């Protein structure tokens, strides 16, 4: 019963955050800030899903290690993408 209330609460929080994401877009904050806020809300929503629906909070240590390793590899991949851009000549950075 206690868990059921928790799951409903998380579901409602996710719906509220979805409404917030759509509302923030209307504020015309500028693209950089809009991307930052949208990704921040999405990350928070994602962590709610992972922590409660996927029970990551009470998961075994081996799973935490596995996911942290994946996160590390993902960060490396994104880092390589951004570093790779620095090696492109200025005139070739943008395509029509």
């Amino acid at each position, binding site marked *: 019963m206690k*868990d*059921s209330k928790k*799951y*409903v609460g*998380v*579901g409602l929080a*996710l*719906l509220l955050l*979805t409404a917030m*994401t*759509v509302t923030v*877009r209307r504020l015309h904050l500028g*693209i950089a800030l*809009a*991307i930052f806020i*949208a*990704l921040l*809300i*999405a990350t928070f*929503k*994602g962590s709610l*899903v*992972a922590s409660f*629906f*996927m029970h990551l909070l009470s998961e*075994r240590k*081996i*799973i935490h290690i*596995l*996911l942290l*390793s*994946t*996160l590390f*590899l*993902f960060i490396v*991949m*994104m880092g390589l*993408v*951004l570093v790779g*851009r620095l090696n492109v000549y200025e005139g070739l*950075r*943008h*395509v*029509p």
Partner: protein
Amino acid sequence: MDAIPYTVKAREDTGLYNARLGIWLFLASEVMLFGALFATYVILRLGALHWPLGASLLSIPLGTFNTVVLISSSVTMVFAWVSLKEKNLGKYKMYMGFTIILAVLFIVVKLFLEYIPKFEHHLYPGKSTFWAIYFTLTGLHALHVLGGIGVNTYFWGPGANMWQSEPERFTNRIEIAGLYWHFVDLVWIFLFPILYLL
């Protein structure tokens, strides 16, 4: 020959039953698959002289509606698993049924209200870089939703017979299917703002 080991009982070394470790390994590979596509999106967007605002090309109400549908399906999925923990197969069937209906609704909206009208306006992946990454990301995600519908429908129908003979193992199967389904929801949580709002 012995039955497959550790379907219910946890292994001594991992502390988990095998399928639970297996699904997390699979989901880790899925993070890298979608992660690579997100990285591709970043490269394409940073490298484009002009990038259209998603909101000017896509329907925010439809995207928001589908987000609400997927979040609701995650809630019903977790309740399907809770019902089995409470040893209530009838309630499980109801919640799993809702999960499947919501997943089908997501696909119906995606296909008939988004994809097909766009094709009618000759907006195909080859039209521009934006449409190429839009159809690749949402198409791959939709394939995952279809996979989830298949698995969940099996567990709602014939697969549920296992409840009579091995209830604990069946409960674990639903937990695994749930982990996959929540991941599909999680991916959409990131796709929606990136493609529709920004």
